[in-house]
């Protein structure tokens, strides 16, 4: 195993452990936004698709990388926007919490 691969595997394993620790503490009320937020994070694949698009030197490769970039951008943009929309709704109302409004 060469040093680059060894350090890549090390990063991989440690990142998995970090993922377990960070996520196991989230309350269930936030699970759906969390799933959506994590879904947006794997949109990082956009970085990889841009790199393959940069080196695409034949029509097939160019077509594949176009589709890949479009897919990945959709994942990133859509993922973050929909997560933000969900989380926006968790804002507390500015008025006193859980108290009836003066009416009737």
């Amino acid at each position, binding site marked *: 195993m060469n040093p680059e691969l060894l350090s890549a595997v090390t990063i*991989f394993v440690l990142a998995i452990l970090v993922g377990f620790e960070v*996520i196991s503490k989230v309350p269930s009320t936030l*699970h759906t*936004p969390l799933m959506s937020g994590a879904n*947006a994070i794997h949109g990082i694949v956009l970085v*990889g698709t841009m790199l393959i698009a940069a080196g695409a030197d034949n029509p097939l490769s160019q077509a594949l990388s176009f589709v890949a970039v479009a897919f990945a*951008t959709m*994942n990133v943009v*859509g993922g973050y926007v929909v997560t933000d929309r969900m989380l926006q709704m968790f804002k507390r109302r500015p008025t006193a919490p859980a108290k009836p409004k003066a009416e009737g």
Partner: protein
Amino acid sequence: MDTLETIIRLVWLVGAAAFVLGLHRMNSPATARNGNLLSAGGMALAILGTVVLIVTGRAGAVSSVAWPIIGAGVVVGGGLGLFAARTVKMTAMPQLVSLFNAVGGGAAALIAIDDYLRVAGSGATLPLETTVATVLDVLIGCVTFTGSLVASGKLQGLISGKPIVIRGGRIVTGAVALIAVLGAAFLFASNVSVPVLALIIAAGLIFGVTMVLPIGGADMPVVISLLNSFTGTAVAMAGFVIDNPVLIIAGALVGASGAILTKLMADAMNRSVINIVAGGFGGGEGTTGALAGGPGGSVREIGPDDAAIQLAYASSVIIVPGYGLAVAQAQHAVRELAELLESRGVDVKYAIHPVAGRMPGHMNVLLAEANVPYPQLKEMDEVNPEFERADVALVVGANDVTNPAARSNPGSPIYGMPILDVDKAKSIIVIKRSMGRGYAGIDNELYTNPKTGMLFADAKDGLASLVAAVKAV
């Protein structure tokens, strides 16, 4: 590695750190939005760094059409994603997340496919570790792509939510799995073969379909979470293929998060992930189970006026929203009723089962959308002891999560599933369209309980009639 490339690599590291911190901030509702923005900022940095890397020629020779391709891809994909995310109704959000997950998995698979074609075209050989990463990326990415599309289609109603069992489906699943394993073994033996890779792609795409089709709609949240974890893993594998650390870190993070989330969701339904993927009940055929009390009990129907009187003169009401409320988009109607009752001095709480709605936490999102104050939403463990003191439990479109059989009847398929102790309330009102069964396909003895009044109506119409009736009290 020159100075600029070192800086770019450090920027990637900052991006990866932002993902970790962002996820960490999603622990609490107060910091969650901020956390998501932090994570988005990290993403923007990582992408910007990549642009600089390509512009300055540090990512190898850049073809003349590279920027038009990237630009067009970003505009098309970004435009579609933005439009869909902005316009989707909150009730349809799980299938949209599944769709974004599908394209993410597809993109990850395409990276490895493109890389492989390039190497094969140059006549070079691949080191074993790259072949392993390529095969895993392609397989997992393809399974995620079609699997997430099917899951999304099921939730959207484009494909029947019932488990679809094709005759010989299991044989097909087994056959494609075998093809994938044999193909992988062939490539691992240091053969470079594009047709074999194509075979593996086809096997992955078919496997995704045959894996998800037989699973019932009720289990889709767990499946989507599982596939989300798969995509993360595929992205990490893509990182190994093109030797990119930020893909490895972010992919592994999501792979781990999805795995934890999947297990939590499955636990909440008292099912194992393997059980779900192998296809269990979820569809309602042949699982009537032995009912402890027998189906003999009769159902007491109640009108909106009687129900309104009970509610208006109660001192404490617990509302139990479920899937039916989400489908009828009745979250605003339920909030209106709750505010009306509060204005009469009734103490109103919402009891949220962990899997109410279509995903864990989905009900909270829907109710938050309708401006229900967050402190009124009570989680199962917190609210269960309060049912005994509640005058009325109002069940709106929830079924299996209120079924006492989960506590009392070891023969029931849902035995052992944590439920809301609705039956302990002094009286119970159930708004339900018909006596139809829930996803588990079993009878709910709560409905034949003498304390229970059934208000047969669509969740939205039923709540609207209750609001009108309470106003008239």
